[in-house]
């Protein structure tokens, strides 16, 4: 049986041929890196690979924190407002505050900022 994780790079627009057991497409990561600023000219081959793992860890952390908010609301469906709450409550996710506001999440009545 085919291992989905192993070949996800190919199925999801990865580089030519096998890109290794990455969950996220390296070519897309590289494009996003390039868009981040004028100064970004050259990117080594390893940088998108590190990001593929770092993004995985990031998604895991933000998801777990969001889920805690979901549970507090006694729900089993994770909503974007839960993600917004997790962002606001976590210092290290300060850079995301505008992103979750743009998504249309309602601003908190009394945001509580906790040290991570």
């Amino acid at each position: 049986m085919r291992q989905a994780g192993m070949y996800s790079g190919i199925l999801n627009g990865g580089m030519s041929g096998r890109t290794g057991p990455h969950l996220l497409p390296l070519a897309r990561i590289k494009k996003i890196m390039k868009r981040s600023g004028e100064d970004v000219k050259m990117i080594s081959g390893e940088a998108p690979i590190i990001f593929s793992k770092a993004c995985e860890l990031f998604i895991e952390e933000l998801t777990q924190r969001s889920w805690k908010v979901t549970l507090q609301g006694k729900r089993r469906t994770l909503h974007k407002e839960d993600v917004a709450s997790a962002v606001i409550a976590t210092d290290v996710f300060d850079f995301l505050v505008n992103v979750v506001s743009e998504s249309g999440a309602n601003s908190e009545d009394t945001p509580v900022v906790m040290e991570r």
Partner: protein
Amino acid sequence: MVDTLGASASTDDGSVKEQDRLLPIANVSRIMKQTLPTNAKISKEAKETMQECVSEFISFVTGEASEKCKKERRKTVNGDDVCWALAALGFDDYAGPLKRYLQRYRELEGDRVLNQEKAGNAEENDEPSLYRGSQPRN
């Protein structure tokens, strides 16, 4: 300033297609699902929000890494710069798992991916690799 993105990434009016700006929703939601209990559900909007957050994360960290390179007068953002930026921005607990991941990856893949990337992506301006041609497999 030369647009390093290929023509395929832009529409005629120059704007970037949304799918090039974000990681695929299927991949992102797969990782989210893996983190949660089996009976958990995720709204579509939450997945889309997460897509936006991840792209912002990549930009944020890359910006920091790129600034370091600029200060040190280096043209290429490498893996160590990314690791440094992550630690500098407060993601120091990612450092351990990342270093192990990178080590394991280097052992398994060697320079094969570097050569593959060069062959498959002519538009990129990567630093010339020290290794030309195919490498013997380990």
